[in-house]
């Protein structure tokens, strides 16, 4: 029973132009997704510094997802390509450090894809929940 009660903590970085608007559309259409997902708005997915993700895992996040515009559709022309390459590197490093691949994800969600946003979040939250709590990167100094 305890497994069912466990609620993961998920940080979602959403680009202002596509995914954040996609999240708004999911809201407009009343498409339910787990409340474990907390969104942080960034101007572009390429604004997400790997440090933010490390910090989130250190502070006890169980999963981090980065959402941007589809390749080719970036509001700033090329930002999402940087994201794609940076995160590929970061995620493989995190994997090496013991943060399972399933806890990190990059997704492309456009402003018109409210349903995709909700479905993606639901799927990600389920995957992360099945992995259980993230312990490997938690900074013990942050614990009170």
């Amino acid at each position, binding site marked *: 029973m305890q497994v069912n009660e466990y609620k993961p903590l998920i940080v979602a970085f959403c680009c202002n132009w596509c995914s954040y608007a996609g999240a708004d559309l999911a*809201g407009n259409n009343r498409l339910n997704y787990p409340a474990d997902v907390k969104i942080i708005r960034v101007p572009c997915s390429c604004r997400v510094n790997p440090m933010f993700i490390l910090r989130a895992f250190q502070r006890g996040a169980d999963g981090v997802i980065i959402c941007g515009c589809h390749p*080719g559709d970036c509001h700033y022309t090329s930002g999402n390509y940087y994201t794609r390459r940076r995160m590929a590197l970061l995620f493989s490093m995190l994997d090496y450090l013991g943060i399972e691949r399933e806890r990190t994800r990059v997704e492309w969600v456009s402003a018109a894809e409210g349903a995709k946003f909700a479905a993606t979040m639901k799927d990600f939250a389920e995957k992360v929940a099945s992995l259980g709590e993230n312990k490997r990167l938690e900074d013990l100094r942050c614990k009170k």
Partner: protein
Amino acid sequence: MQRIGVFVCHCGTNIAGTVDVKAVAEALKNEPGVVFSTDYQYMCSQSGQNMIKEAVAEHRLTGIVVCSCSPRMHEATFRKTAQAAGLNPYMVEIANIREQCSWVHKDMPIGTEKAVILAKAAVAKVNLNAPLTPGESPVTKRALVIGGGIAGIQTALDIADAGFPVDIVETKPTIGGKMAQLDKTFPTLDCAACILTPKMVDVAQNEKIRIFSYSEVTDVKGFVGNFDVTIKRKARYVKEDVCTGCGLCTEKCPQKNVPNEFNLGMDNRRAIYIPFAQAVPKVATIDPNYCTMLKTGKCGVCSKVCTAGAIDYSAKDEYIEERYGAIVAATGFNPISMEKFDEFAYSQSKDVITSLELERLMNAAGPTGGTLLRPSDGEHPHTIVFVQCVGSRCAACEQKGKEYCSKICCMYTAKHAMLIRDKYPDTDVYVFYIDVRTPGKNFDEFYRRAVEEYGVHYIKGMVGKVSPEGGKLKVQASDLIYGKQLHIDADLVVLAAAIEPDKSARGLATMLTASMDTNDFFTEAHPKLRPVESPTAGVFLSGTCQGPKDIPETVAQAGAAASKVIGLLAKDKLLGNPCVAHSDEMMCNGCSTCEKVCPYGAITYQDKEFRMPDRTTKVRRIAVVNEAVCQGCGACTVACMSGAMDLRGFSSKQIMAEVDAICK
């Protein structure tokens, strides 16, 4: 330390229905920096805004957090409120507790808990906010309209009317678009050419309008107020300013077997051609795919007959660069390909045609001179079957058609049916439909006339199969109301093909960084309140590139887009986005990594003298951001290895604070 006020909006029951707003306001009272916290029915209302202003004065607030709808909705509203209260508008942050919380979570305790966390994250961010001042940039007072159909024409005329210069870029040799191909228009049955061609002439004669026909936009740089656009002027091998449009060359050209795209391939044109009599500009164009002279170097007939000396076989594609303050996309539509709809035998029989082809067959300037004849044998058809929704409202056949309703087909089919019955009363006309959709002024009356006055047989049901047999088309269909199968021997079958955005729209959207929906229609900034603007500032939408529309709607939207453009061009200065990158010169080591990732070329380097602790000076190379060019994506902030680059309004510290607040 900031003095922050937290304002939690009920949004009627939109938020208060699933979030305990009072509990949220209460929970925020003890957050660091918060000195005042309250809730109210409608924060965006006049009294809600007054409440904020009063609280700012009373509690000497330095920062504001509004827990309400999406910042995409009301961020601008609350920034104005803050400004009116004497605060810097960028000291406001929105916690999106409606779209991200109350509307997606049904459970009150869960919704409330999440709302508190989102609000705390916003408070954490405001604690680190600093006042920002937007920079100013000049506005180039010239507009670009991409597409020369009725939408582009109307937009250009309206902008020019207000006194601003406009350029139209059209890929075809003439402006006019789809409307020029139509015969009559619903619901008034007036002739399309008679109402369109005077407008085309107006465009040609307007001093403020330049037409770049047979041209394409190949590159767009810059941003609102100052777009630098590269336009490719395809070689037409005829000097535009010399050609008189007499048309002699188009009669003498020996290459006679070129499919005429204006008549949808139903007849032939020459290799040198003027698309139609009222073309604007009325200038001949040589089709390099068919011209013998250009392919083999032997012929030159057109050059010999041209008394004006306009032919130039050595012409090359030219690229011109222009700067524009605003860009209007008016790229229009095309009927979808019927190749995948094998059940209707479109590729097997010439007598199965699309509605646009019928339009040409009924047009006086069309391949048959306006007499309705079967394309296969030139006989008069006696039984005509119209099939509605071919590829429209077709959710099940995803790979074949479109999910959406193409909107115009019900009405133009009623028009076709009516015109045929009017001109050829001995013809039997059947229309197979799923629904007849006639919302619009005088639309339903028009459809009723087709049924009641003209005796068109409307049958609810779909056509299952069309098979050509012995000169006839065997149509198998179902009548859903009488629940029986029908077999009709038709002479002509007309398919109401779904419409889709022009293929060029996708590439254009990428160049403009304008967003599109899953069907490649341009997305509007707000579906209800900003229907003619793209989310990308300075880019506007006109006509069917935004969604299926009939002519009156297109013209209305074209005018609306023009008025938005005029509003922009009338400004002398634009306030920029103050959330731009800036470099800490003490930390920057001049490595130029940031310069390489910047998509706008906003970062340059300069040598600066620094005074060292031992009172000597040292010259170092440092990055400098041109704030007028920076768009604030933040790519450089992550690329910067020394941590010198940061983004105002979305600083690393602010985002870290949000992460911390969420993960607490």
